[in-house]
């Protein structure tokens, strides 16, 4: 079956503009977090009582938790009472036109070839983005609806499909899971909801670009994907162009449930603002992503290209509960300047004959720190389960760091865990060879790095892969010579 490809490129073509809501509402909650704020958020979103209860329970639990310090990242303390948790007024900080936007950011858009009208949206300029492609959106939505696919914002899902949301919300990432997930559970504002019914193969790649009526979901995004028996969906998150955001802290949750014989492919290109050359500004990205392979033969595949954010804390994971289920994690994480990334995965093998593959490629340049952290666990019932991990690190320059911290727990004598890791640098010989063929040192580095990441890039949908390759070059600019 040939899939209809709807890519980022289509998204930015003239026929489609971002569906950002630009009316600045007067109804904002003040800064800070308390039960009243949570009640305010819930009321504004006209949520049912059970959801308010969920939020409040999470909030009360969060008050008892401490911010985790085990990751290899350092950042100034976050004042959680100095954050707007609902509809932060943007007019004060929003640039009025591209003239007010950081010229460095504009240069990057140039290099990536981002069309003009999209730049304004990405840079957060307060434009009246006229939603003139309602017809495109409607056609798209109708096409999915005909097959019973639900693809909407999570707020809409709460109104229109409360049973599904209620059944699965917090079922993979409980609010007690970790500090940031708990915070998200209390205050999440919006995100994507996807349901693929039994036996349906989603005919197109679903992308956040096409989320209809998408509100700016802000810093506490919540995504749920449910793939019922024997269904398939490929979901794309993010975009290659650096996005500016006035919110420094991002703490999202992604929950995925995969039933019998179903398959979910989740691809991310994350390029949030990483801060300037001196490490000022930049997004803190503390994300909890986890999928449950609940059914027999379920398959979940995470592919991520992480180039942005000042601080990244992210471990897309698979709980392999169903017998014969399979988890995959393919990751490229590039850090430059003062960026810090602590990322990896967890593969929890519970069912029989479950298998997992981890391929992680970390590239550190400048003064950055790049850590792979992973957990592979074989439960007592995971007979004949298999895991293979390959974690490679590439260092560019002598002021950066690459760290590999895989945890492995083998608790079943018929299961096997295998982990291989290497750390190396781009050799002088490789650089000379490429330059002798006419490549500049920067072109040579980007070619070699793309070669190093090839196994992961190949897992991305085609259009995404092309953009990601270009992104590698831009991210590493200034890292040599």
């Amino acid at each position, binding site marked *: 079956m040939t899939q209809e490809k709807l890519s980022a490129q289509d998204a930015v073509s003239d026929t489609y503009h971002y569906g950002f809501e630009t009316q600045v509402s007067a109804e904002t909650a003040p800064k800070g977090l308390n039960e009243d704020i949570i009640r305010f958020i819930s009321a504004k979103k006209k949520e049912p009582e059970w959801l308010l209860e969920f939020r409040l329970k999470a909030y009360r639990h969060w008050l008892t938790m401490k911010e985790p310090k085990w990751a290899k990242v350092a950042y100034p303390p976050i004042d959680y009472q100095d954050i707007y948790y609902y509809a932060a007024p943007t007019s004060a900080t929003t640039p009025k036109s591209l003239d007010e936007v950081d010229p460095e950011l504009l240069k990057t858009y140039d290099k990536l070839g981002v069309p003009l009208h999209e730049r304004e949206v990405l840079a957060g300029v307060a434009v009246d983005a006229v939603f003139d492609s309602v017809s495109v959106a409607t056609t798209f939505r109708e096409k999915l609806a005909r097959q019973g696919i639900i693809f909407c914002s999570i707020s809409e899902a709460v109104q229109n499909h409360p049973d599904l949301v209620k059944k699965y919300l917090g079922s993979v990432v409980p609010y007690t899971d970790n500090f940031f997930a708990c915070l998200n559970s209390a205050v999440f504002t919006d995100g994507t909801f996807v349901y693929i019914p039994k036996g349906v193969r989603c005919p197109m790649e679903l992308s956040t670009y096409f989320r209809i009526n998408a509100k700016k979901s802000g810093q506490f995004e919540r995504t749920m994907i449910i793939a019922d028996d024997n269904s398939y969906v490929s979901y794309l998150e993010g975009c290659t162009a650096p996005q500016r955001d006035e919110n420094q802290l991002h703490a999202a949750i992604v929950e995925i449930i995969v039933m019998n014989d179903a398959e979910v492919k989740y691809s991310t290109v994350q390029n949030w603002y990483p801060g300037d050359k001196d490490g000022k500004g930049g997004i803190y990205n503390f994300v909890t992503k986890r999928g449950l392979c609940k059914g027999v033969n379920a398959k979940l595949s995470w592919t991520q290209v992480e180039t942005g954010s000042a601080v990244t804390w992210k471990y897309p994971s698979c709980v392999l509960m169903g017998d014969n289920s399979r988890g995959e994690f393919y990751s490229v994480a590039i850090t430059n300047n003062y960026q810090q990334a602590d990322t990896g995965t967890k593969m929890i093998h519970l069912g029989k004959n479950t298998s997992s593959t981890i391929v992680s490629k970390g590239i550190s340049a400048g003064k950055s720190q790049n850590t792979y952290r992973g957990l592979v666990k074989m439960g007592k019932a995971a007979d004949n389960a298999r895991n293979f991990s390959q974690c490679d690190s590439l260092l560019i320059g002598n002021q950066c760091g690459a760290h590999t911290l895989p945890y492995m727990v083998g608790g079943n004598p018929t299961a096997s865990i295998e982990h291989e890791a290497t750390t190396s640098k781009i050799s002088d010989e490789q650089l000379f060879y490429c330059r002798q063929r006419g490549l500049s040192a920067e072109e040579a580095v980007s*070619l070699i790095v793309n*070669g190093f990441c090839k196994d992961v890039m190949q897992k991305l949908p085609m259009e995404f892969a092309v953009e990601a390759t270009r992104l590698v070059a831009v991210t590493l600019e200034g890292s040599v010579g």
Partner: protein
Amino acid sequence: MSAWLEIKDLHAKVGDKPILNGLSLTINAGETHVIMGPNGSGKSTLSNVLCGNPHYEVTGGSVEFKGQNLLEMSVEERARAGIFLAFQSPTELPGVSMSTFMKYALNARRKAAGEKELDAVSFMKRIKIRAQALDITDEMLKRPVNVGFSGGEKKRLEIFQMAVLEPDFCILDEMDSGMDVDAVKVAGSGVQIMRSPERSFLVISHNTKFLREQIKPDHVHILALGQVVAEGGAELMDEIDRNGFAGFLKEAVA
């Protein structure tokens, strides 16, 4: 006939060790020159210095290529100006396919020359024709550069790159080493096809049979202790076949 490459009194060292000690050499357009000499005489240093390998330091002398001061140019500027080195031990580039590599290399040149990038069709045509002529399969072009190839295959792929990039000045460093008889013939015919009045060759080798049969040089230079100690035509190779380098070494010491 105009001088294509003119080396005058070239001195170079690696670390603290001087390797080239006043080497002079002139190569005209369309000529094929051979450099022979015992191990450590500076043959490979010369090829690296001509290409600007940062590992080697030039301490004196001059090199002009088509009227440009080569020594002031960066490695890639020299490559784009038309200097090509077929490496003795080509470096591995894991994950980078040969066709991607050639696309980058060609486009880097075109960009420097202010030309547009090659479109996919013309590019494929350009590499396919040359690959066929050198017995290089599509599968070899898809595999990562120099990873998992035999010594002979690597050398053939060096000649292939030379054919694709169409440089004005080709340096072949110990091209015949590690190749079987058939591979040497294919590579040799590749060199013969590429000979033109607008292209010169500098071939480094020990193997007089290979040089006579496949390269057919116009000039032969004997290098010893970082200097040219003898120059002549193909007949110099007969002398080496009879007596080795011993006689030439005496001259260098004297």
